[in-house]
């Protein structure tokens, strides 16, 4: 008997209460840069990226902010600006050669402005350049991507190489009640994915595999505040099983392997990888009306989902719609109204049979797109392609 419904509990992961960005400030920063007011341009860029947070005069004092487990420091040194976040410190017990190879192979690279730098036994991600070469788009890129790299790798490096993290921002552990609920969500999630992969094999449908893979990744990203080793392993697996250019057999194997790997995690491991981090820079991409329209409105994708529903393939239709809702909530930040509307959609179908879930969510998606979608007017989706990641 295949799985009859999905439980979609309230998330434990907290939404980040971050003020919306004022794009006018970014434009102003570019104007200042082009006028040769380099220091003011840097301050205006920081004000744009960190709305509502006081940015000091960098000529007088350094500025620092927290992004997940990474602490980022910014200061001006002569005519140069320096951004730095400490990654790790090698010690007598660490596997130093393996750690150094990892820094050189995975963290040092072309295609990025910041690089790992070793001073003594301490390794940091650093970026240093002349103020006159600090165009706001370059500064925004470094400010978003550098802490993301540090935040994504620090706990993992401790586990793998035994290095110390001398300057890591502690992440608030879950309260006991939250942790108990997290374990329940974790177990129920992997039970459901285990049954869904069996169904995917039975149906031999790539589209169904797409939906199962999306659900497996987005549901946990939305509900649980994962970090560290388990998040790294889950993301690594998801890179493979959600890769639609990869052969379906390989994706199926990657998902099965990920399920086994995740099921092996003990409660202690999970406790160490669950916690509430704080982010000065919104780690999620800002959702736009046109994104809502293209995902939930009258596009080809929704048309095909509608055809699945109309031809009685309710399970596929419902799973696709649920995965779309989860993706929108997991990867994008929304106004409270939109977020609430999306959450209501999930509440309506949690625990409901596939046919009912497909009908209810189909109607809800269309209504949400009508109310909050773009209706053809211009918005900033195309021009806002700054880096984001899963927090």
């Amino acid at each position: 008997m295949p799985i009859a419904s999905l439980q979609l509990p309230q998330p434990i992961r907290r939404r980040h209460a971050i003020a919306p960005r004022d794009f006018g400030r970014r434009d102003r920063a570019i104007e200042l840069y082009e006028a040769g007011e380099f220091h003011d341009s840097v301050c205006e860029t920081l004000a744009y990226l960190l709305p509502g947070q006081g940015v000091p005069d960098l000529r007088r004092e350094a500025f620092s902010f927290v992004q997940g487990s990474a602490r980022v420091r910014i200061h001006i040194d002569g005519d140069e600006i320096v951004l730095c976040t400490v990654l790790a410190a090698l010690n007598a017990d660490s596997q130093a050669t393996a750690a150094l190879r990892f820094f050189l192979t995975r963290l040092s690279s072309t295609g990025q402005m910041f690089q790992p730098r070793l001073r003594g036994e301490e390794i940091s991600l650093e970026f240093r350049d002349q103020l006159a070469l600090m165009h706001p788009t370059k500064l925004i890129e470094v400010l978003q991507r550098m802490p993301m790299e540090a935040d994504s790798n620090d706990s993992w490096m401790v586990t793998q190489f035994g290095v110390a993290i001398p300057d890591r921002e502690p992440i608030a552990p879950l309260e006991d009640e939250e942790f108990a609920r997290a374990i329940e969500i974790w177990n129920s999630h992997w039970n459901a994915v285990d049954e869904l992969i069996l169904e995917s094999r039975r149906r031999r449908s790539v589209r169904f595999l797409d939906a199962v893979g999306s659900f497996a990744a987005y549901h946990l990203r939305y509900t649980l505040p994962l970090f560290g080793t388990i998040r790294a392993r889950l993301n690594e697996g998801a890179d493979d099983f959600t890769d639609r250019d990869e052969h379906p057999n390989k994706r199926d194997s990657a998902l099965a392997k990920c399920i086994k790997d995740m099921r092996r995690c003990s409660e202690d491991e999970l406790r160490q990888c669950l916690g509430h981090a704080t982010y000065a820079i919104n780690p999620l991409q800002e959702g736009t009306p046109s994104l809502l329209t293209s995902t939930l409105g009258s596009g080809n994708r929704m048309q095909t989902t509608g055809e699945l529903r109309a031809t009685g393939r309710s399970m596929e239709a419902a799973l696709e719609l649920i995965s779309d809702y989860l993706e929108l909530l997991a990867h994008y930040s929304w106004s409270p109204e939109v977020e609430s509307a999306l959450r209501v959609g999930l509440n309506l179908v949690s625990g409901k049979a596939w046919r009912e879930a497909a009908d209810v969510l189909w109607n809800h998606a269309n209504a949400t797109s009508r109310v909050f979608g773009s209706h053809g007017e211009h918005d900033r989706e195309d021009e806002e392609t700054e880096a984001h990641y899963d927090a």
Partner: protein
Amino acid sequence: MTLENLTHAAEPIGLDDDIEALGIYQVYTGSGTGSGFLIDATHLVTNCHVVQPYRQVAVEMRDRTRILGTVQRLDPHRDLAVVELSRPVDGAVLELSDVEQMRPKQAVHILGFPVGLPLSLTEGVISHPRQLLDEQYFLQTDAAINPGNSGGPMLDDHRRIIAVTTCKLNAADAVGFGIPVADVRRFVDAFRAQTSAFGVQCPACQELIGAPLRYCPSCGLDLERQHDFGEFFDTPDPHPLVGFVENSLAGAGIDPVLARHGNHNWSFHVGSAPIKVWCCCSDHLNFSSPMVQTGTRGLNELFKFLLAAEHAPFSFDLNGTTIRLNLVVHISDVFASQEHAALSARVKQFIAKADVTDNLLIEEYGCVPAPETQVEFLKGAEHDEAS
């Protein structure tokens, strides 16, 4: 004549293992790469679309050094070009076949540089000796043709040129086309009689035109309206990114024409160090030198040296076992023209550092040369002269 003699007479000469000695070379421009073959020690025939819109191109020898080539004649209609080399080269000149009638199923050997790989041979048969396509006749073959083969020769079993590779049908498998040798011979003969330094053939009457005219002086064809003839005589303004890179390379003593390796790509050697320049996305311009490979001992010290903060603004990374020295320039800096001098100085510094660091890594840290390292320039007098 006995049957045996007939068999012997028809025995193919073959293209066993000596293709490296043939006068077939890779042509590089700022648009892409192609192939070309010698018609004498200083002239190369290739496709017009390989060299267009450049009047100067780079031609790579077997030892990976490049020499300058100057375009002397173009036939855009038949897609042929002649390039004069800056010095004589010693590759074997292949004979143009005088056999006008080709047969279906006759063997075809295609030589060239597919997808930028070293000189390669693919084989097939003639599918149609005179296939009509876009009002021109082509030799059609089922032999594999890939980007980079353009301008290379198609040979018969007797190592004679029977066509020049020009294109293939993307929507079909194994449908490639060559310009028949009779047209190639006519083009080469006309070039031999050419007295001017540069000219483009009129698509209608083959009259050689040496200036950007609106109408062909011989047949009256409207050249500009139908064929954009002006473009053959004008060097287009470079993209600001290209301008920045090529000015920076020139400032570092590198000939930018010889360094071109396709669209927004450059590659060259400085002393022993290979250097590549490319855009990986809309934000970053990368300079990278895959200089050496790691040894097997002392890796901890080597890795610490590579990660040392003193290398900034440059950095090292490991690609497999290959150590690369990198410099990343943000595209926004390229458009901040007031800072070009500082950035160009940084590029020059990077090139100089690449040239000396490979020796250091080999001598001090037990690294070994990378596949692209020009080992003859590692250390010693020759190295000093080259740098």
